[in-house]
């Protein structure tokens, strides 16, 4: 499917591509949909990774390489990654300062990226960014890592050709022998080669490379001396990059690398989807909640993880089944599955009176809310483990939780047991926690009016619950005998009046209709 945005990007529109990149970076589901459309048009560009310690001259070298490739009429994309602050989340992205002279060249697109907590030398969105530039028709995409040390070798996973930039005076031959990035690079650039020690570094490097035994590879990495700032050695480096590209194609290595990359990308997509599904099923704060139980050894991480994943998968299954057989409306809803738009301002509603239909009305609102991806919590007071039909279906729907308090029989107002009171108080505590958690948009307190009228709960406490509720939470109270103080503070009060009830004719409560 080609959307307007897809078309713009395929035509090389920088504004459209740059905007999509921001959305991809922010992990917006609709942006990932756009990436689905672009994916068939990717896989053409040659991706070059450039890594090395801070200050060795990566950005300056890339600046010189851009000029060299532009002479060959190639279209260039650059993705320059710099670190985010682990403290504030902010970042100073300063790589493009070395490449500013290319800013007015329409065929050079430079984009700076912050790591946002991602380790390995790149940002999480790097691969998506490469795809967007690839779809725009860039011939070469250069990825600059953060100034990295020894083991940040993620760049090898995204690049066709990985270049390690070194500079003289940064370590002896033991550094050369270490595992990690030294083993993984396809080309070595010894930059600042006018400084003392460049030739010695080259000899050490070459002797190390001579010893190397990289299985199944006929490629022998070379070390090129460069002085990026004086534009020296750049043509040799560019020629070596092109030689490596030709080798990749003729040896079949390119295909092998791209398969590895595809596997990695798929694994990440699966993890991301599962994670966002878990978040939508359990709410964002589930880790905090479970942490207490784990610390107190009430449960263990392994079985909890298993439970969470199987729950998420079953919900994912259900929503995709709905999607297949459902109407167009359903399909649209599915797309926005993870996007919640809570009501701006939540109100307090009361359904009371002696007629039938109070809980049913509340459940109707719950259904409506779930349909709009709002998160609902229903707390049943005084209705213990009774086979209500709605409970069977609610526990299978996304974005809704239920909590049940009360004994498995009806409470006799003339003979209130201590256990009834205890259960109701537990329910009230739960209600407080749920309302304040920020995890729910609609909270239904079923039969709380009766529990209050029969003195299982203090009306003042319920009043306080209402007063302290966060603004965006919609609170619904059901049950006969609503306390006048609650009625006074509520925004909506509906009284169901009994005109007729089948019970008067001796018809008892019917399965599927009354419960």
């Amino acid at each position: 499917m080609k959307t307007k945005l897809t078309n713009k990007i395929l035509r090389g529109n920088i504004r459209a591509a740059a905007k999509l990149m921001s959305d991809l970076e922010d992990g917006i589901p609709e942006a990932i949909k756009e990436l689905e459309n672009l994916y068939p048009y990717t896989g053409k560009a040659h991706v070059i990774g450039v890594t090395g310690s801070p200050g060795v001259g990566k950005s300056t070298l890339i600046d010189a390489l851009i000029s060299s490739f532009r002479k060959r009429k190639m279209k260039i994309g650059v993705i320059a990654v710099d670190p985010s602050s682990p403290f504030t989340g902010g970042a100073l992205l300063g790589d493009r300062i070395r490449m500013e002279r290319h800013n007015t060249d329409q065929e050079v697109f430079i984009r700076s990226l912050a790591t946002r907590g991602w380790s390995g030398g790149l940002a999480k969105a790097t691969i998506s960014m490469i795809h967007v530039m690839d779809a725009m028709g860039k011939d070469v995409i250069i990825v600059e890592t953060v100034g990295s040390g020894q083991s940040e070798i993620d760049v090898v996973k995204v690049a066709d050709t990985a270049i390690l930039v070194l500079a003289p005076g940064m370590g002896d031959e033991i550094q050369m022998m270490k595992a990690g990035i030294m083993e993984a690079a396809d080309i070595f650039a010894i930059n600042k080669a006018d400084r003392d020690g460049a030739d010695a570094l080259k000899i050490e490097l070459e002797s190390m490379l001579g010893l190397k035994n990289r299985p199944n590879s006929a490629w022998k990495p070379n070390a090129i001396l460069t002085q990026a700032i004086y534009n020296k050695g750049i043509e040799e480096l560019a020629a070596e990059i092109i030689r490596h590209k030709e080798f990749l194609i003729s040896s079949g290595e390119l295909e092998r690398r791209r398969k590895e990359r595809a596997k990695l990308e798929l694994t990440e997509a699966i993890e991301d989807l599962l994670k966002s599904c878990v978040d939508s099923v359990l709410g964002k704060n589930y880790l905090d909640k479970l942490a207490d139980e784990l610390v107190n050894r009430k449960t263990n991480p392994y079985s909890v993880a298993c439970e969470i994943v199987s729950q998420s998968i079953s919900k994912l299954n259900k929503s995709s089944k709905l999607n297949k057989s459902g109407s167009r409306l359903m399909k649209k809803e599915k797309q926005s599955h993870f996007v919640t738009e809570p009501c701006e301002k939540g109100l307090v509603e009361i359904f009371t009176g002696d007629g039938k239909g109070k809980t049913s009305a509340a459940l109707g609102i719950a259904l409506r809310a779930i349909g709009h991806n709002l998160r609902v919590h229903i707390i049943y007071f005084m209705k213990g483990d009774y086979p209500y039909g709605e409970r069977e279906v609610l526990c299978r729907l996304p974005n809704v939780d239920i909590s049940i308090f009360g004994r498995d029989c009806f409470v006799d107002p003339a003979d209130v047991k201590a256990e009834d009171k205890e259960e109701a108080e537990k329910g009230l505590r739960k209600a407080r926690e749920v309302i304040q958690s920020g995890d729910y948009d609609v909270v239904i307190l079923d039969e709380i009016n009766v529990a209050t009228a029969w003195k299982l709960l203090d009306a003042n406490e319920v009043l306080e619950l209402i007063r302290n509720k966060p603004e965006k939470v919609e609170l619904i109270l059901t049950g006969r005998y609503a306390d006048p103080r609650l009625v006074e503070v509520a925004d909506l009060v509906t009284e169901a009046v009994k005109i007729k009830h089948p019970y008067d004719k001796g018809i008892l409560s019917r399965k599927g209709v009354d419960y």
Partner: protein
Amino acid sequence: MDSERKIRVLVAKPGLDGHDRGAKVVARGFRDAGFEVVYTGLHQTPEQIANAAIQEDVDLVGLSCLSGAHLYLFLEVVRLLKEKGAGDITVIGGGIIPADDIAKLKEGGIKEVFLPGVPLNKIIKWVKENVKPLRVV
């Protein structure tokens, strides 16, 4: 998934003015406020700045000028952004700017002007209140 989007800012020095201390301090302050700051360095033409702002999809461009050429340089950046379909990017400026020019700059599309001595947190507060990242999809 963060519901709050990161604010991306470009800090640039247009024209032939070598005084970048102020721009660097502001860039650093923005970083510490949790923004992602692209710093482009000295001696930029308005064309270079507008192109970089679009490529980086920033929400805000902060221009610094101490040479006296702010009227031309600042307004040219605003004009180029509009011409390139990026008129929604907020542009602010700072530097040695006579009071008479502030009104002219604002009239020309510069959203706010900060003069020497303004506390960093005042600029940051202004950005947080006035810059809201927009989504494309």
